């Protein structure tokens, strides 16, 4: 089974990502836990309710989540896709989901992320990381702790350093 870095540990990743498609065809969906595209999540709830496994969703970093946040924060998993690792929009969307819309489930970074972004991704609220390239996850996990403290308020630290020093 493919693996995943979650809450600092390397674990099995049973979730399958369903590629972009507006219509959920119950027959065509694989069994087991799935992450469906946003449009499918929004338009096919009745079909997805009858799915055999757990259902979460994935979005792109350029998604205007303001209008749909209330309909997605109930998901057990939200994945944010990074089409390129230098496309930083997903960092802002993650913070909105955590800080503004109170998402408490698993927030997963997927796509072209790199190990050296882990500390920043974690600070923005991601707690799970699914790499599209082959990397040694145990070794990569070290980058989650590149820094022992930081100046700014973020999803992992409600108080800025200036109030704690």
């Amino acid at each position: 089974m493919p693996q995943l870095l979650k809450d600092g540990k390397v674990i099995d990743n049973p979730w399958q990502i369903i590629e972009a498609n507006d219509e959920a065809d119950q027959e065509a969906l694989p069994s087991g836990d799935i992450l469906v595209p946003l449009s499918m999540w929004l338009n096919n709830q009745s079909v997805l309710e009858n799915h055999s496994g757990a259902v979460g969703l994935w979005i792109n970093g350029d998604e205007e989540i303001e209008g749909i946040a209330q309909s997605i924060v109930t998901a057990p998993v939200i994945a944010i896709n990074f089409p390129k690792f230098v496309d930083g929009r997903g960092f802002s969307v993650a913070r909105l989901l955590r800080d503004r819309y109170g998402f408490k489930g698993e927030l997963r970074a997927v796509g072209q992320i790199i190990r050296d972004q882990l500390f920043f991704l974690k600070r923005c609220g991601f707690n799970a990381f699914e790499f599209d390239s082959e990397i040694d996850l145990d070794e990569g996990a070290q980058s989650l702790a590149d820094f022992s403290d930081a100046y700014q308020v973020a999803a992992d630290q409600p108080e800025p350093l200036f109030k704690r020093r």
Partner: protein
Amino acid sequence: MYRYDQYDQTIVDERVAQYRDQTQRYLAGTISEEEFLPLRLQNGLYVQRLAPMLRIAVPYGLLSSQQIRKLAHISRKYDKGYVHFTTRQNIQLNWPQLEEVPDILAELASVEMHAIQTSGNCIRNTTTDQYAGVAADEIEDPRPWCEIIRQWSTLHPEFAFLPRKFKIAVCGSEEDRAAFLLHDIGIQLVTNDQGESGFHIFVGGGLGRTPVIASSIREFLPREHLLTYLDAILRVYNRYGNRDNKYKARIKILVRAWTAEVFAERVESEWAHLKDGPATLTGDEIERMKSFFTMPDYKTVDAQALDSELQQTAGQNKAFARWLERNTRTQKQAGYRSVSLSLKPAGVAPGDVTDQQLETIADLADRFSFGELRSTHNQNVVLTDVLVCELFELWELARAAGLATPNIGTINDMICCPGGDYCSLANAKSIPVAEAIQRKFDDLDYVYDLGDLELNISGCMNACGHHHIGHIGILGVDKKGEEWYQIQIGGSASKDAALAKVLGPSLSREAVTDSIEKLLDVYVENRLEGETFLAAYKRIGIDKFKERVYAPTA
């Protein structure tokens, strides 16, 4: 100046360890070229035409003598014994080895310095007035605010992968010496009708291919809201800035596409969620930051007596008098002056200094300037708080070290990018053009008679030499594989910021200096009493200049 506590030191030390590990993984082949690129850039390392280039951060241009000595040591040990001062108050090494950069960063960390975010698509070093704290026209010292911004922007987790680079400048005085309207965010310290201090916020300024003067988006932001408001601006830009085309990715393009009004509305609605949140500044934090920028221990002196003594000395020594006039400046503290050490003697690339000169600068700072100095966006060094009665001694020492060329603010004090001699982006060389101009205009009486004149040279349209905002700007262009130069006139970096206009078709390098001379002739023939080049240009227009430069030769 600001001093690190254990938190600041730990963050910088951990950054060195992180980059050392990244460099080792890159050299071992486990990080690809593409992935390593933004990592090294955000640690200041470019790969240039001849060798890597390392850009070291000088937060808002402030340095201690200890830091300057460390830079001298680094330039000897890891480079060729000289460094380059940039137009954003930073310092560059031109010949470091990629393998040794982690060691250089560790040396820097030992004196509370770093190269964090000096390049790459992230928030860069915040810049300000080189006369902060001593300028007579100062409303408020901008440095505490610059340090607050430095800490907020350092390793900001949300804004490390922006659409493009992002520059912030803070202006705390009546006159603008930070070119703040030519930054992605320009912050002007202001006081409102109730006497409360706050900020006038401008966005979307910048040079480069599409030069734009920043637009006002908020006339008064109370001071405690600075960071939440910056978070709001950056979040809007991070989400909506263009990521498909790097030439359309700066915030100025977004502001222009949406209009400043719409951009301001988007920021305000984002800010509504962040306002009064935990990042809101406290009075304690503001006071803590201000406590680092207290005034030095000034002596009580008879300023009038010192001044008449100074005039007497100047009367007896013409060379000293010239230097005094061009390279020193009065301060709000009576009996003290600020001194510009010129890094632009003819024959040296503008902004370059040797390790020996750095040692001298450190000694001068210790002896005359409370151990501190400032780098300027004009690529010179300023020593503030020099007692008037010690100016002559300082001048003699600076002159012996080649640091007293009396050309500050003249045509020979040009801003100049490294150009085609070093930079892989450049279309043309810029340093030889600067040198040719300095050699041509070597008659000091003539140069002084021309008065304040800003001449800026860029080797390509990326505009590192700020050619758009020079009174005279020179831009290197590529014409069928040959180096040509376009001349522009009428730019200004001050509060009446203006972008220069193109004079006409580009010229060969040989024709540049003669054309500059023709521009100056038109100015001298047409100027009114006391009128600067820029003022004369505004009054008489571009045509007279154009006609002279492009007149058919007899």
